[in-house]
């Protein structure tokens, strides 16, 4: 075992893994994090804690990761290259490991100009770092863990036991370079991969075929990304504005139909779309599960975490292998948590 993390155990045992995401709040309210943790306990093998997601200042990923551990959840601490140089990164990794964090996802991070796609002010005038890129970061963490050396060459006595992961945008432009770039991530040390949200399953399967032909599926665990669509507007936005995400017309039409079926009743339209979104998510999970080389799913229900238990239950992924009993899974029965 590299890390002894639950995610590593689940993957090693050959289970189809499930990871989900918890976004820290924009303040210091620990209860917010704990509330989400209690809601989601047992629905996934590990939970990504985002790191200043969409280039907006939030509670640090290390702190929020430690908070969810108090509730018995396992975090995947996300670490962007945008905000830290190699000194800060390695110091935070040592600190995170000292606090019991065992999984880390290495990502470049949205550019600081992003600011939640203009919905928040953010800090577009910030200076970014990008001292190392995400691929270099993977290699740095692998070196710390396996060789017991800092990037600069100084020794590390107690090596940080971390499962290191990376993100992958299988359908990002230029698409022909994506399998090669995945290989670089695997070569650098990625133990697991979480992909950008997949809606175009057929094209994703084509990329996975290349990945399998390269033998990468045997060297890393690819967890296919599923972003739960709440409504037609969200699907349209992701299709037009999120790099690497393309939504097939058929899915868009399904959602439009669900919306239109409610006529002028806006509340019903919203409920219809929510239900259709959940159906689509469940189907996507089932479809990506059948693609050779896919070892799990990474399900993102952005600002909609309370619907995750239901989605994963309907997808037949509950209870999780490590979950001990039904009492650990909350909120599966109820339709609306008002969260």
């Amino acid at each position, binding site marked *: 075992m590299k890390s002894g993390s639950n995610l590593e155990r689940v993957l090693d045992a050959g289970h189809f893994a499930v990871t989900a995401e918890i976004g820290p709040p924009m303040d210091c309210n620990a209860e917010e994090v704990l509330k989400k943790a209690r809601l989601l306990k047992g629905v996934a093998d590990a939970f990504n804690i985002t790191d200043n997601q969409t280039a907006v200042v939030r509670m640090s990923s290390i702190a929020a990761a430690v908070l969810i551990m108090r509730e018995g959840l396992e975090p995947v601490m996300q670490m962007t290259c945008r905000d830290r140089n190699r000194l800060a990164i390695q110091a935070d990794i040592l600190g995170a490991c000292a606090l019991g964090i065992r999984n880390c996802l290495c990502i470049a991070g949205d550019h600081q*100009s992003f600011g939640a796609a203009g919905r928040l002010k953010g800090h577009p005038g910030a200076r970014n770092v990008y001292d190392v890129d995400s691929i270099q970061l993977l290699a740095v963490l692998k070196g710390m863990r396996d060789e017991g050396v800092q990037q600069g060459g100084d020794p590390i006595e107690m090596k940080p036991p971390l499962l290191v992961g990376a993100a992958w945008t299988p359908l990002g*432009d230029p698409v022909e370079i994506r399998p090669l770039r995945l290989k670089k991530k695997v070569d650098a040390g990625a133990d697991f991969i979480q992909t950008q949200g997949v809606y175009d399953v057929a094209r994703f399967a084509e990329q996975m075929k290349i990945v399998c032909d390269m033998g990468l599926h045997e060297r890393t665990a690819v967890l296919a990304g599923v972003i739960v669509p709440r409504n037609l507007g969200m699907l349209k936005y992701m299709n037009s504005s999120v790099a690497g995400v393309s939504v097939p017309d058929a899915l868009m039409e399904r959602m439009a139909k669900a919306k239109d079926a409610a006529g002028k009743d806006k509340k019903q339209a919203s409920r219809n779309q929510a239900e259709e979104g959940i159906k689509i998510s469940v189907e996507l999970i089932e479809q990506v599960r059948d693609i050779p080389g896919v070892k799990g799913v990474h399900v993102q229900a952005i600002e909609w975490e309370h619907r995750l238990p239901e989605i994963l239950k309907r997808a037949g992924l509950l209870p999780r292998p490590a979950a001990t009993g039904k009492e650990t899974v909350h909120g599966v029965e109820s339709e609306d948590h008002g969260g």
Partner: protein
Amino acid sequence: MIVAERKPLSEIRGFVEDYYRLLVVGCGTCATVCLAGGEAEVKVVASGLRISFLQDEKEVEILEDCVTRQCEPEFVEKIQKRVEDEKVEAVVSLGCGVGVNFLAQKLETVPVFPGVNTKFFGAAVEPGVWIEMCAGCGNCILHLTGGVCPIARCSKSILNGPCGGSRDGKCEINPEVDCGWALIVERMKKLGTLDRLAERIPPRDWSTSHAGGPRKVVHVEVASLDDEKGETEP
């Protein structure tokens, strides 16, 4: 070349509010080519200031000059002399930031104000449009990336790109900005060297860049010639 852009006249005027004898100096090299601070722009800025001061009924003498390069002693000497002889109180330099620094160092007691914003090292891709192409990082890796610089042309200076934010050849920060890594991939495809991108570029030693502190280049032969000259001509 170094690409610059003229500052708004109101900003320049703000710098020189307290002076009555000004010299506006252009630079005949980069700043001229990028239409920011050559002879023509000196005229524009000087005339603009004159009109602006006249409107406020303030009498200010504004002299004009333009030298071949503001970054070399032999061209700057002329300015030094003029400032001294003509009792210039303040200088507005339309050279790049280097010109302002260099003039300021030479003029000692006379203030030098920047008349342009120095932007980047770039090239003219079409008339009137310049694009950043080099970040002056001190250790060129263009042989690895098909001659397209990831440090200058990728918004994240990623050495193993492209990141997930590339879309239709454009960068996630702005659909007007080319994705540097899309350009690299395109170029290496044409060269038939795309497979070379499989090689991982390790973390960089940024000490060759500004991260390592202000830099200095010494051309040993020329520098030693200068020393000898100094010895023979006391």
